């Protein structure tokens, strides 16, 4: 078809008598052209999403490459393969229902589309429930990001011993303690001691909860899971001990950014669901369903890589 005839037919398609398509924007020739353009734009957006996650994957790669034992220790001690696998299955299933929903929209199957969207939403919610269980277990163990991680060497309550390269002489001049801190400088000798003995520097409620370790009871005869973790932690080199909290920074940033995408996806799917109930979509116009579907599959795609990289470290 020549350019001229395309333009004429496109023009008549948009404005000709009886053929007006309410969804066709003025600057597109045909609904197909509009659909492929929208899809192209969505793919460019998905490309930038991959690049954004690429930064986190880069940080992950460098730290895992340089501290493989840290990643093995932290993943085996704190990440549950069971929950990770369950979440993988949940996300893949919700991806299936989303793809099936797009198919239903294309074939004018409104009831099926609604069922598929509701199932996808339930999958997303289930994923977040599992993630909440995992996150709160880590919060209970005091492994979170930054100073809220008991392995962070900057935290007074840290388990980490200072690396041998560090000078251990006392300072010549005592610098006054900052206002926020009753005891600004921990004694070098304090590092590695029982955490309950260390004087507080950060006095927020979280630091207090770290210091309030429950007293040992008589029933703790055989080594608990926590003690086994402690034993394995002591086998790490001093330098590796200082990098354990880096794993958790990677873990929480990667799964956290992914979790934000899941929440955004839930909002988008709810929006699609509302528009479906409003009879907005048909086989003539299903672009938003298709594009939200693409977004949801990307969320699944990223988790497909996060799961083996974080949970299945051998």
């Amino acid at each position, binding site marked *: 078809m020549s350019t001229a005839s395309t333009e004429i037919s496109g023009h008549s398609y948009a404005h000709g008598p009886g053929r007006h398509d309410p969804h066709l924007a003025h600057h597109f020739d045909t609904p197909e052209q509009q659909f492929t353009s929208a899809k192209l734009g969505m793919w460019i957006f998905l490309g930038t999403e991959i690049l954004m996650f690429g930064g986190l994957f880069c940080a992950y790669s460098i730290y895992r490459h340089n501290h493989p034992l840290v990643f093995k220790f932290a993943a085996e001690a704190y990440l549950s393969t069971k929950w990770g696998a369950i979440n993988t299955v949940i996300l893949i299933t919700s991806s299936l229902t989303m793809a099936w929903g797009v198919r239903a929209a*294309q074939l004018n199957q409104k009831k099926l589309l609604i069922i598929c969207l509701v199932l996808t939403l339930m999958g997303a919610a289930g994923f977040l429930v599992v993630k909440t269980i995992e996150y709160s277990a880590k919060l209970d163990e005091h492994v979170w990001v930054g100073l809220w991680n008991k392995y962070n060497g900057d935290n007074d309550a840290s388990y980490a011993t200072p690396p041998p390269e560090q000078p251990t002489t006392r300072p010549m001049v005592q610098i006054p303690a900052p206002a926020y801190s009753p005891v600004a400088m921990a004694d070098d000798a304090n590092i590695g001691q029982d955490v309950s003995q260390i004087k507080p520097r950060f006095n927020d409620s979280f630091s207090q909860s770290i210091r309030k370790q429950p007293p040992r009871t008589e029933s703790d005869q055989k080594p608990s899971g926590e003690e086994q973790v402690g034993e394995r932690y002591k086998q790490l080199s001093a330098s590796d001990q200082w990098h354990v909290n880096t794993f958790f920074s990677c873990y929480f940033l990667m799964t956290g950014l992914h979790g934000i995408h899941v929440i955004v996806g839930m909002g988008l799917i709810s929006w699609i669901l509302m528009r479906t109930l409003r009879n907005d979509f048909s086989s003539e116009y299903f672009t938003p369903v298709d594009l939200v579907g693409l977004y949801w599959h990307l969320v699944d*795609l990223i988790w497909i890589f996060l799961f083996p990289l974080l949970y299945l470290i051998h």
Partner: protein
Amino acid sequence: MSLTHSNDIPAPVADDAGPNAPHGVHAVPRRTLAGVYGLLILFTVITVAVSKVDLGQANIWAALLIAVIKGGLVTMYFMHLRWDSPFNGLILITALFFVSLFVGLALLDSHSYEPQMKPTPMYIKTR
């Protein structure tokens, strides 16, 4: 005229789409969706099983290979790339290429500055 399907090639309409299938719309067949889902679950089981076997350095590569296969299934079938204009796939490949360039080049020299990445605890900085 359609940009997705030229006139010479018949538009691939789902074989089980039924009489309601509108012209020019490609719906992924039910059997394909179910088959891809089954494969994705199967590969999830395989990747968990492989991680329990000690393959040394090969473990990470096996995990990545399986993830790439799963990702390929998701993009090709769920995300419709197999039937789309190749340009959409090109965008995906370009993004992946630049991510691998980013990660690869960053990994190349990470050993050279790693010794300087000693932990600097706060109490030493305040001296």
